[in-house]
């Protein structure tokens, strides 16, 4: 149906008594892989998204669970019209919003990973610092632009799929990614300036 254009992430529930849409729905839902398979293939994707969508680090794992449980329980309502990742993104976004609201906290991206850096690994330390810089910068921009950048530049998703995830048109997706990059570059420059001032 929407194959030509950018399809919506979630198809609305099949209209009552509409055999065409029901048949379509059933056919597409059958094509949705089992949860175990989806988990195997997309667990990390969902985990990363959950963090980037502002879910507190302490409850990221719970949120990820919720995403897959919802996906399983409501699989009959979901029709994958495009990419499975777009479907997952839609669910993750909703779950993440709930967690954010529950936490009732200022948006805070994933904290430093749990395992402490190994001793004497300068390279690893530098990498963590660099990651922290970007994470802070991401935390400073609004979700629309942040997620456009996350999907396109961090996840490496093709732009049409990004647009599908965000339920926006392709041009809007491009423009969001561009604006996000500019904002991030400015934030990083500010960070460097501050660091430079601190350690002359």
């Amino acid at each position, binding site marked *: 149906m929407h194959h030509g254009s950018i399809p919506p992430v979630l198809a609305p529930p099949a209209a009552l008594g509409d055999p065409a849409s029901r048949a379509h729905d059933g056919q597409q839902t059958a094509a949705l892989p089992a949860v175990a398979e989806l988990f195997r293939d997309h667990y990390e994707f969902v985990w990363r998204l959950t963090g980037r969508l502002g879910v507190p680090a302490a409850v990221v*794992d719970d949120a990820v*669970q919720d995403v897959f449980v919802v996906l399983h*329980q409501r699989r009959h309502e979901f029709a994958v019209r495009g990419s499975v990742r777009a479907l997952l993104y839609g669910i993750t976004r909703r779950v993440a919003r709930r967690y954010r609201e529950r936490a009732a906290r200022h948006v805070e991206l994933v904290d430093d*990973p*749990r395992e402490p850096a190994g001793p004497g690994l300068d390279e690893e330390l530098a990498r963590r610092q660099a990651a922290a810089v970007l994470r802070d910068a991401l935390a400073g921009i609004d979700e629309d632009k942040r997620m456009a950048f996350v999907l396109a530049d961090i996840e490496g998703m093709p732009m049409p799929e990004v647009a599908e995830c965000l339920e926006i048109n392709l041009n809007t997706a491009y423009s969001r990614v561009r604006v996000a990059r500019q904002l991030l570059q400015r934030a990083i420059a500010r960070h460097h300036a501050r660091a430079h001032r601190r350690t002359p």
Partner: protein
Amino acid sequence: MIEPLDDELRRLVGALREVDRPGDAARASTWAAIDARLAAAPTPRRTAARVSWPLAALAAALVLALGLAAATAWREAERAGVEAVDQHSPDSTPRAVEPRPLRAVETSRSVTGERPGESPQSESPGAASPESIQADAPESLPHPSQLASPESSQPDSPESHPHSSPTGSPESLAHSPPPGSPESLVHSSPPGSPKSRPDPSPPASPEASDPSGPHASPGLEPARPASPSRRRPADSPSLRPEEVASFQRAQAALAAGRYDDALDALDAHGRRFAGGLFEEERQVSRATALCKLGRVDAARDARRRFLRERPGSHLAERMRQICRDDE
């Protein structure tokens, strides 16, 4: 399409990708938790869906049936209206339909105006049971109420005529009830004779009982506002019953060999329903009629024009056969 990341941003993104990774332990524990939850609650939504589908189907069927019934009733009413139109000339009918309810009121009023003087007993049923009058008021005037219903655009005429007068002339309704005979009113209203009796009494009310008067007139009022919409029963371009009837009339004349009538009817149809559903059929029939009337040149002109304008028509072949013998 989109420019590559600048070096600084690419370095940071690479670092973030490296760092932000769930551990294997987290993955295992998350899956274990999901598995447990799925086992504990085996898709409750699905059972709900299973139950709700038949219900939904039932509801849909019900709605469909209701809609179908309404549509059928509407169609019937429409057809009745069209037949009524057929009996008279199409222009005169809407005008004839409108005043009828008013005249009915006037006559009933005049009837009652004489009745109190003639027989004072007539007041007693009205005064004895005002409730019955109130209750009857809407029911005792079935014709106006039928007129008032926007769906039954012109169906009143075929129904009211047979009931009110065998002659079928619209005026007969107004004249048929002579002052002293309530039977004529009884005839004009549906079977229930006890209900028809209060009919004369409401007009008696202006003097006798006030409540019934106001009740009677509101019952009639809607008839007038509804009448303008009655002129054009259905604007739906798909299938207008009067259009079908008009064309059928022409076809009947053609089949009966009344070619002059058929020609007139076809021309009238063409004027009234310009570009209508039967335009092609109309042109074919018209050419046929012209040919039968011996107006061969006109028939050939019509045929030529048709074949030029509508070469792909499914009636083109039929059109080609018209007046062919004469060539």
